[in-house]
């Protein structure tokens, strides 16, 4: 891989409001141009925090960020003012989980897309409008002209998410962050949106980080999967390897807890326990208290994320070994 589009180095995020919480703990991650990465994990594992930190959306007064974020060689954490505005939505943009909440309710869809295009350097209002309309057509919104003047509440959930994607792609970002883009939608619409995202990704060649807790969705769109737990990446590798040969007990548990036709009539496998309190992380491996393979070492030492030919793994007692390089 040549110079990666995105690289996170030892990225840690701490929130200090009423109580401290370590939402991300020394995350290292690289993403190449045109690559699609799925971030997989339970609620509170740090997936969404990673995305929001990439766009620096957390309130600065309550957030402490350490480490570095580089996108196209630029230091994101050092960006200020206009540079940051151009970066947000220009270089990197985001599709939110709830399209119903992420649009401003008192502006039309068209106004909002146009505004975003104008904020990223387009001077001509007419051109910006035409471009916005073109985007709505590109995400296959029927009767795009009419939908252009519709308010968010006048569209269905699926249409709103399409419009959200149109908005996110309007300024031709190099990297798209999709934060559980299908969670709030009906099952049939979910698949349509996933297919649309994959199609647009292939067409534009952008990179995508796709946050989900739905392994099926991850398999559908991603090249690579990174599994997160308690603000750390615990396992990472190509989709096929993760699905066929998961090494981390947590990944194994996640895969076992998905529902498929072959599970009919059998009891659903759940991972016992709940994710740890981010304000009070256990000393060793965060997953140790819930892990059936945990040893004394697991609860005293944090396992390092070790690279192998099948990706990366942070586990003292893996279910199966990651092949060495």
């Amino acid at each position, binding site marked *: 891989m040549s110079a990666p589009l995105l690289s996170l180095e030892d990225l840690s995020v701490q929130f200090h409001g009423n109580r401290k919480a370590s939402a991300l703990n020394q995350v290292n991650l690289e993403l190449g141009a045109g690559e699609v990465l799925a971030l997989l994990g339970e609620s509170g594992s740090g997936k969404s925090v990673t995305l929001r930190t990439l766009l620096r959306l957390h309130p600065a007064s309550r957030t402490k960020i350490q480490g570095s974020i580089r996108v196209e060689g630029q230091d994101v954490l050092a960006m200020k003012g206009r540079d940051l505005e151009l970066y*947000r939505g220009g270089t990197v*943009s985001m599709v939110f989980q709830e399209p119903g909440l992420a649009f401003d309710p008192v502006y039309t869809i068209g106004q909002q897309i146009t505004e975003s295009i104008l904020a990223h350097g387009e001077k001509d209002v007419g051109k910006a409008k035409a471009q916005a309309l073109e985007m709505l057509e590109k995400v296959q919104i029927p009767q795009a002209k009419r939908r252009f003047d519709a308010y968010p509440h006048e569209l269905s959930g699926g249409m709103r998410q399409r419009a959200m994607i149109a908005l996110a792609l309007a300024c031709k970002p190099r990297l798209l962050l999709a934060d559980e883009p299908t969670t709030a939608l009906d099952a049939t619409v979910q698949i349509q949106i996933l297919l649309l995202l994959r199609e647009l990704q292939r067409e534009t060649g952008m990179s995508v980080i796709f946050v989900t807790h739905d392994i099926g969705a991850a398999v559908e769109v991603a090249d690579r999967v990174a599994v997160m737990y308690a603000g750390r990446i615990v396992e990472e590798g190509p989709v096929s390897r993760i699905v066929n040969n998961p090494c981390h007990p947590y990944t194994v548990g996640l895969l076992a807890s998905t529902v498929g036709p072959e599970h009919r009539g059998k009891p659903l496998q759940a991972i016992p326990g709940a994710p740890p309190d981010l304000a009070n992380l256990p000393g060793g491996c965060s997953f140790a208290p819930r892990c059936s393979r945990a040893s004394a070492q697991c609860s005293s030492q944090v396992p390092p994320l070790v690279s192998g030919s099948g990706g990366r793994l942070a586990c003292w007692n893996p279910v199966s070994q990651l092949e060495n390089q």
Partner: protein
Amino acid sequence: MIAYILKRLLYAVPIALSVTVISFVLVFLAPGDPLNAIAPADAPEEVITALKSAYGLDKPVPVQYGLWLWRALQGDLGTSIASGRAVAGEVMSAVGNTFLLAGLAAGVGVTLGCILGALAGYRSGGWIDRFASTLSVIGVSIPHYWLGLVLTIVFSIWLGWFPAMGAGPGGSEAWEWNWEHFRYLILPALTMAVIPLGIITRTVRALVADMLEQEFVVALRARGLSGRAVFQHIAKNTAPTVLAVAGLQIGYLMGGSILVETVFAWPGTGFLLNTAIFQRDIPLLQGTLLVLCLIFVVLNLLVDILQPLIDPRMGR
């Protein structure tokens, strides 16, 4: 949208009618006989009867109401018992004066309230937030006639900057657009501005602080919009609620300023109501009440019509 406006207009009709009934009947519930105010205590029976029939007070109340409403619809609110002048004219000149006062007070109060509230909402928890909260608590809880008296003592008696009472030099009641007249407006307007200031500050602060936590504001930032552009979005989202609160406040100021107008002897509707009550001037009281209530109804109608123009979710 047009259907919505028509519906709102239609709703206003029964409201306005009930307002006329209440304005008319309320007065009869109060103790005291209007004739006492004009006829001497020892007036002979025939004089009283003649006066009663002259003012129509000998007819049953529903008939009186019908006649009054019929004339009111034609713009005739009767004659003031105390002054003998047409009520409509008296009320209209008072409404004009109050409109000036309430307009300036609301302008100052709402503008300052929006600015302070927005600053406090953006900096919630900071010193400006604490300052704004304190100010709004004071604004809401302070007795306004007392504030009026204090301002009079400080600015008219001690400093001599502004006149203490009246609406113009030499007791003139006719407003003119010059500094000589404007000086008279300042103290009562400042006193009255404190009322909407407190409430609007609190409302805007709560709205803005809440709005900043909303997902869509995060999403606006994620699109790379500048702080100013994000603020425009927030402003447009808060506008309908602010408008509704401001509309109510202006309505109260138009009619509810009896104490302030009395303290400053400002010849407005509050002052007129006060006079009418003390003189038991029933036609004047009814006419003033009616006009004030109608202004209130119209203000709310305006707010109802304006709101969905800003937020289309409301127009249904």
